[in-house]
């Protein structure tokens, strides 16, 4: 091969590998979804996954949402004051939190916390032959390991997004009424009247998609981990990076689908 073709070959190989990975993850997702009916056999694993993905994520999601909402209200007030438009703080905070920052912050927090922990757990199971042990014990690892976690992602993350939205709005409300001089009743009324059903539907839809991405990517990385501690570390790193990028890309796609004109 002539030297000037080498970079093109590299790009070509990278593109083919990327397409192959997308195909693998798509098949993995379909396999996980096909296993959902089999979960009736493993109620304990389902409960454990809901606890791990949903309940235990509440504190970090709640704190992130409150701080984000408060900072957003301050920024909108500061920016609005340049245009003598300080009064839009409740409306823009509400729309910013519910449509964008609420789901995205929750998605990224879930990618950091849940994706990392699930990928590490499953990769360790792979490295210590626990996944092979499941097969030899007549149990399908996709049903026992992947399906409960994906179900928990699809159900719990939209709930977390809903909680994050409410707490984010509360953060903005607290700053606006405590520091920026807004009246409590008028702030709530202005926020409430400005939001409509589509905003909430978008927010929760993003939660479902982000939850699916965070858990499927974690399980896929865990199942395909390399050997030893290094393999576990690489699986976690790759899972968190992929989940965060895919969540941000999906966010653009969903926003465009709902409001792209």
């Amino acid at each position, binding site marked *: 091969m002539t030297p000037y073709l080498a970079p093109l070959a590299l790009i070509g190989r990278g593109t083919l590998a990327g397409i192959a990975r997308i195909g693998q993850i798509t098949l993995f997702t379909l396999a996980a979804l096909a296993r959902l009916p089999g979960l009736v056999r493993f109620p304990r694993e389902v409960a454990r996954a809901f606890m791990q993905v949903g309940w235990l994520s509440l504190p970090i999601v709640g704190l992130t949402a409150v701080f984000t909402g408060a900072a957003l209200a301050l920024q909108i007030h500061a920016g609005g004051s340049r245009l003598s438009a300080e009064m839009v703080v409740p409306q823009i905070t509400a729309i910013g939190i519910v449509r964008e920052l609420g789901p995205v912050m929750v998605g990224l927090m879930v990618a950091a916390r849940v994706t990392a922990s699930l990928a590490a757990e499953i990769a360790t199971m792979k490295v210590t032959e*626990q996944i*092979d042990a499941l*097969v030899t*014990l*007549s149990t399908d690892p996709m049903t*026992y390991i992947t399906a409960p976690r994906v179900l928990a992602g699809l159900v719990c993350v939209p709930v977390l997004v809903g909680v994050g939205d409410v707490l984010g709005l509360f953060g903005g409300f607290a700053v606006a009424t405590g520091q920026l001089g807004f009246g409590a009743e008028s702030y709530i009324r202005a926020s409430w009247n400005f939001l409509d059903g589509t905003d909430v539907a978008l927010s929760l839809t993003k939660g479902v998609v982000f939850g699916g991405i965070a858990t499927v990517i974690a399980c896929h990385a865990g199942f395909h981990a390399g050997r030893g501690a290094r393999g576990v570390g690489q699986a976690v790193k790759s899972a968190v990076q992929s989940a965060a990028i895919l969540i941000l890309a999906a966010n653009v796609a969903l926003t465009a689908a709902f409001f792209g004109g």
Partner: protein
Amino acid sequence: MIRLEHITKRFDGRAVLDDLSLDLTKGRSLAVLGRSGTGKSVLSRIALGLMVPDAGRVLVIDQPMSAKVRRDLMAKTGVLFQGAALFDGLTVAENVAFRLRNGPQRVSRLAARSQALAALERVGLEARVADLYPADLSGGMQKRVGLARAIVGAPEFLVFDEPNSGLDPVTAGEIDRLVRTLVTDLKATALTITHDMASVATIADEVLLLDRGRVRWHGPVAEMEGAEDALLGQFRARR
């Protein structure tokens, strides 16, 4: 019971198993002996259907390996993994009873626990360990729990991957004797992966010496002492 015909398996272009054929005769205990990295564990994974060979085929009671054949094989197979591979989130009793509760048998919780306790007793563990978690146990105890999990439900085929690795010589000897007793009592077909000659002498009826992915020597344990093979001689010398 299981026949491997002309199996070849490559990793990164290197043949770990090279045109290997092997018969696991029903009721016999075969030990596969060899240096590290000679494909012993790959051989056991291919025999169990956990890995697909690049060439050759695996027959289970004259049926070519398929998803269904593997499922049927797993229902009557017990495996002791090198690191025991116990599930961290489950208690010892839940680990041992796992197949009974989640496999095709679907035994009730109470009956499964009772069988698990019996299996634990059989491998020399007291009932008080049943509600501990794997992390609470020593390496030797974890091996015993792994052994109990392998034999629960009286499987016809047993696979032991380095059953005494990482154990002190006394515990290793105990595990070897236990494995032999269990294989004999269950009248099971057994495949043991090891690099330990003392294990071979205790556990196996016949030995297969693997070297560079090929069978170097194969014969009854009784004939191993007199065999004129340099590598086998080195293993004997290290005993």
